[in-house]
């Protein structure tokens, strides 16, 4: 068991350390997400009466676009000096490698999303922070990170990786995205209790479980040549 978890923690530690040093992933995707929020702020006629209808959509657009950048960058780092090959040469299971990269991706995406909430509150003059919303963010981000790790590893060696990743990623995560937007809209709009959105939460959980089973399995085939 120790042989499985140690490499996962090492990969997460390595990713956090390199991110602290070069600040490539979080800073770039955070700035990009702020730009999305600013553009939406100007593009839509947002009034106190309409903000609760639009807030959820705008939030998740910024989250998902920022997430795509995080995913692409997370594997570009592995491509520098061919370090992913170095990892693949180590006597660790491909599952451990997958979980390490997936956990890093999840952490980076959550940091960006949490940083965006207060910016959203300031720009739209509307407080969206609530424990229920955080729960939805965590569940949806698990789904994004799970699928994103697989597709980012596939697309990183293609010539058009920036295009390939969204093309592969969006169709697969659509159920998670729809569930997250719908659940968030209920929470933001009416302060709905978790019990009232349990259908969306169950759907999120269901897809998370499916992705968590299928993606690590498929990852082994992707990285072994």
């Amino acid at each position, binding site marked *: 068991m120790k*042989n499985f978890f*140690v*490499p996962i923690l*090492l990969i997460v530690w*390595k990713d956090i*350390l*390199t991110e602290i*040093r*070069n600040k490539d992933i979080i800073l770039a995707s955070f700035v990009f997400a702020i730009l999305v929020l600013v553009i939406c702020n100007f593009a839509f006629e947002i009034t106190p009466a309409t903000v609760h209808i639009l807030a959820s959509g705008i939030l998740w657009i910024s989250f998902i676009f920022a997430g795509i950048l995080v995913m692409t960058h997370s594997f570009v*780092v592995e491509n*520098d*000096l*061919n*370090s992913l*090959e*170095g*990892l*693949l*040469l*180590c*006597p*660790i*299971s491909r599952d451990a490698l997958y979980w390490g990269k997936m956990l890093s991706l999840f952490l980076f995406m959550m940091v960006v999303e949490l940083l965006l909430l207060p910016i959203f509150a300031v720009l739209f003059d509307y407080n969206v922070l609530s424990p229920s919303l955080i729960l939805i963010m965590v569940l949806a981000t698990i789904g994004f990170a799970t699928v994103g790790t697989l597709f980012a590893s596939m697309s990183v060696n293609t010539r058009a990786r920036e295009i390939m990743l969204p093309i592969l990623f969006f169709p697969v995560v659509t159920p998670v995205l729809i569930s997250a937007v719908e659940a968030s809209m209920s929470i933001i709009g009416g302060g709905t209790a978790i019990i009232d959105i349990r259908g969306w939460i169950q759907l999120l959980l269901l897809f998370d479980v499916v992705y968590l089973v299928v993606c690590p399995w498929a990852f082994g085939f992707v990285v*072994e*040549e």
Partner: protein
Amino acid sequence: MALEPAILVNGLCKSFEDNSVLSNVDLTIDWGTQLTIFGSNGSGKTTLLKSLAMQCRPDGGSINIAGRDVSRDRSTIRQNIGVVGHQPMLYQDMTCIENLIFFGRMYGVNEIAKRAQKVLSEMGLGRHLNDRVRNLSHGMQKRLAISRAIIHKPPILLMDEPETGLDIVALEIVKSLIKSWTSKMGAVVITTHSIEIGLGWGSDVAILNNGAIVYRAKQEEVDQMWMRKTLLSNFGLTS
């Protein structure tokens, strides 16, 4: 371990689309030997080494490393090999010592900090422990790549053109490293373009041409004059 050869390759084939890169390669490398594989560009040296390192899957044939079939005992075999490739396979924003500690822990090396310091000192990087990889010269990155390959003391070393980018001092370090490896009954496989390195480092030699081993000789059987002439005139290698 001593009963089986270090590396046993039978009928190895590999193609990329319609291009056959390795065709029916047979190779046996015993413990305590160094084999230098000569070959011109595109002869299949890197593909052969990558197949041995399990970095690419062969189309046919079998490979046994330390008595284990690479199609089955992959994790155990990975523990037994150290690989130096064209790229250093390191993290640019981590320091030399951090890289070695990271990879050493992946291999489950005990007292890794001490071991990493020792290896870096041996490779002439003692003064660069805390330098980030991105700030190192190409030659120093290569030294660090070799350090990464030996951090877990693998019995088998696979080195793809290890001389590239190394100065004379570093070449001497690598030469003595290989000597110490073979003297401890390890096995080392090197590919190179350089006749000087292949013939000067006292190893068995093989020539790979168009994906097939066309010549193989023990160190004591090699006629150096004939070999130099053949490699220069027929295979376009450099002295």
